[in-house]
């Protein structure tokens, strides 16, 4: 990408979380030439090429970052890109409704000295809050072009792209205005001058010096002292001097000055009309976070949530499954029992599983999640549930990955990147595979709900949540909490825009399909080959004592359980195949007790291959194997217990 980047300018979109940056990016990418997206639009970057007045601009959307001192992995992604990508222009998106805070990042970015454009976004929300920003004044104060945008309506998007291109072509850099107090300025300049000529400077010596003072690395062990001991000493001296002058740590001196500069610019460029009466939105917010009413609403939201997903999912599933069944019949008629038949069948099963079983439940869930997120409700849910999550050793920020897990565990694990501490990410990721995803839900619905009644199925879910809580407490013993707790921004309530939600769902869906489908289809084909070779029967013999002895299930189900690893949602079909029966005839071969044992075991036993791979990628090999071991153990113990009790 480096070479064409010289000819096609690169614009980096950077802004704080919830500033509407991705929305703006997507609105702009609407004029796209082509677009590639990477899993979880909010935690990784997205890249698009945009046509602007006959020219092409490469735009890259980075995850939101509050500051240039990262605290979670999503922020680290943003900063790595900022530092490594040779951006021709930075597009800093600021939330006009909280301009004072947004400008803190802007001031940090101005120090890079790169050509920059500020998108003054969310003006509609600012107006509702009684904040009127004078764009021209802000432009003068910052020394870079400021474009007014309302991303949700696509307003100002074209102008922004033109301004970005203009900034690249003119190569105009922000004025090198010295905003720090003279004392701080002298310290920064002193350290910048002390940088050796061969030091790997980022952007410019001043910016590098500021980053060195602010970084968490100690001057005794950090990169600077490794590079050259004199520099480490100089850094220590600079920090000590700042601390002596102000009586607070050096990084706080810079943070405090920047905070006050940002406030000053905000106050000089904006008029704030403070309302005395609480607006309807405020009153709604009071209700949503009310100690009693809040939980009633929360319970209602989640019940509606699952009701809608299952109501929408079930008919879609049967709609998609029908053509699949006829295709399978056609394959059987054409090829009989040959290897081709097995391969084609495996392929169809794989595609079918991805399309017909996961999507019907996953798409409505993504849609509802996007609505809740866009409206700002997820943050409120995090607030309400924090106290319970706290008792389980986690906090409110883990709520949204957990909810996503009901659709599919794969994106849920990716979503744990919003958590700051590694320990919280690990614990949440280890728990997610115990959440019944849509594939397992189909089994629960087909066996428990259909043969035992919906109350049993509900009970199954409740039991699953209790198990989740118990496991969380248990794991917390081995993973003691290392963070003091929740810090969660509560964004203003908004009416979600259908267009944006559709776009978000599409992006996430594409990421899911790219990651999970190859694994689903590949696993399914492997499974067919194993069946063709007759290896499934040998497995049944090996697993006999476990399946028949411990769980009291028919011996033939051994292979089904093992291959649940490759394809969770295939377990049901495979069970019927293995037992040589049909769904309607099932009660003749399997007692209801056995169905419950089977469902418990299949739901809990081992994360599926896609989840396993994602866990490995996100948290490492040990976490993936730990998760697999944990689920096998839990499934065996609970499977046995259920058999004994029921």
């Amino acid at each position, binding site marked *: 990408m480096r070479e064409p980047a010289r000819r096609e300018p690169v614009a980096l979109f950077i802004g704080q979380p919830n500033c509407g940056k991705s929305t703006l990016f997507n609105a702009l990418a609407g004029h796209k030439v082509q677009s590639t997206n990477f899993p979880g639009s909010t935690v990784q970057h997205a890249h698009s090429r945009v046509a602007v007045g006959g020219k092409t601009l490469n735009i890259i959307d980075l995850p939101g970052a509050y500051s240039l001192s990262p605290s979670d992995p999503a922020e680290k992604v943003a900063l790595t890109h900022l530092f490594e990508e040779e951006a021709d222009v930075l597009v800093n998106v600021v939330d006009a409704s909280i301009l004072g*805070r947004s400008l803190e990042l802007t001031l940090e970015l101005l120090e890079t000295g790169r050509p920059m454009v500020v998108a003054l976004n969310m003006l509609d929300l600012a107006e509702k809050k009684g904040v009127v920003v004078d764009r021209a004044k802000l432009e003068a104060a910052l020394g870079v072009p400021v474009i007014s945008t309302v991303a949700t309506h696509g307003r100002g998007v074209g102008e922004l792209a033109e301004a970005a291109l203009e900034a690249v072509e003119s190569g105009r850099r922000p004025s090198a205005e010295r905003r720090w107090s003279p004392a701080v300025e002298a310290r920064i300049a002193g350290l910048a001058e002390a940088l050796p000529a061969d030091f790997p400077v980022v952007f410019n010596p001043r910016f590098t010096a500021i980053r060195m003072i602010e970084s968490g690395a100690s001057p005794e062990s950090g990169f600077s002292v490794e590079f050259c001991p004199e520099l480490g000493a100089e850094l220590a001296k600079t920090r000590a001097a700042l601390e002596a002058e102000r009586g607070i740590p050096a*990084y706080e001196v810079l943070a405090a000055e920047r905070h006050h500069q940002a406030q000053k610019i905000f106050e000089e460029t904006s008029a704030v009309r403070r309302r005395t009466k609480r607006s309807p939105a405020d009153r709604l917010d009071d209700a949503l976070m009310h100690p009693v009413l809040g939980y009633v609403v929360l319970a209602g939201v989640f019940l509606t949530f699952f009701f809608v997903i299952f109501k929408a999912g079930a008919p879609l599933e049967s709609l998609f499954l029908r053509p699949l069944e006829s295709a399978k019949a056609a394959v059987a008629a054409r090829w009989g029992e040959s290897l081709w038949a097995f391969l084609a069948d495996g392929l169809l099963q794989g595609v079918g599983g991805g399309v017909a079983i996961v999507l019907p439940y996953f798409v409505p869930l993504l849609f509802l999640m996007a609505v809740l997120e866009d409206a700002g409700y997820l943050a409120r849910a995090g607030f309400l549930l*924090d106290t319970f999550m706290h008792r389980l050793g986690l906090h409110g920020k883990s709520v949204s990955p957990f909810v996503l897990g009901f659709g599919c565990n794969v994106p849920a694990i990716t979503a744990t990147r919003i958590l700051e501490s590694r320990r919280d990410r690990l614990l949440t990721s280890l728990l997610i595979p115990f959440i019944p995803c849509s594939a397992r839900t189909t089994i629960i619905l087909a066996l428990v709900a259909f043969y035992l009644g919906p109350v049993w199925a509900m009970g199954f879910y409740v039991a699953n949540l209790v198990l989740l809580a118990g496991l969380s407490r248990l794991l917390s013993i081995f993973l003691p909490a290392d963070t003091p*707790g929740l810090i*969660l921004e509560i964004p203003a309530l908004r009416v979600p825009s259908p267009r944006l939600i559709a776009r978000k769902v599409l992006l996430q869906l594409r990421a899911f399909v790219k990651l999970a489908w190859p694994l689903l289809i590949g696993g399914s084909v492997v499974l067919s080959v194993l069946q063709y070779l007759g290896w499934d029967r040998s497995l049944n013999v090996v697993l006999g004592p476990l399946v028949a002895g411990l769980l009291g299930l028919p011996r033939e189900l051994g292979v089904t359980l093992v291959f649940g690893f490759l394809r969770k949602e295939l377990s049901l079909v495979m069970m019927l195949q293995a037992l040589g029966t049909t769904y309607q005839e099932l009660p003749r071969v399997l007692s209801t007790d056995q169905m419950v044992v089977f469902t418990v075991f299949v739901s809990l036993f081992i994360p599926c291959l896609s989840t396993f791979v994602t866990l490995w990628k996100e948290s490492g090999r040990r976490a993936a194997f730990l998760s697999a071991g944990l689920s096998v153990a839990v499934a065996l113990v609970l499977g046995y217990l259920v058999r004994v009790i029921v």
Partner: protein
Amino acid sequence: MNPLDPDARGKILRIVDISGGENVRRRLFAMGFQPGDRVESGPRGILGGPVVLKNLRTGVAMAVGRGIARKIVVAVDA
């Protein structure tokens, strides 16, 4: 006092100091909460849940868990 103090409920407070470790302080700074800022103490979670603080200077609202709230030293703003 800290924002969890019964006297702080629903009042307008001024952040006097943040007494936590560097990790907590950095995160609060990044959210735009610093000593000297005026904040409004908002809804509180039940059973020792978090408390919502709204920064009146920047307009940013955040929920902070009890552990962190205890480290924010505030005084009732006159």
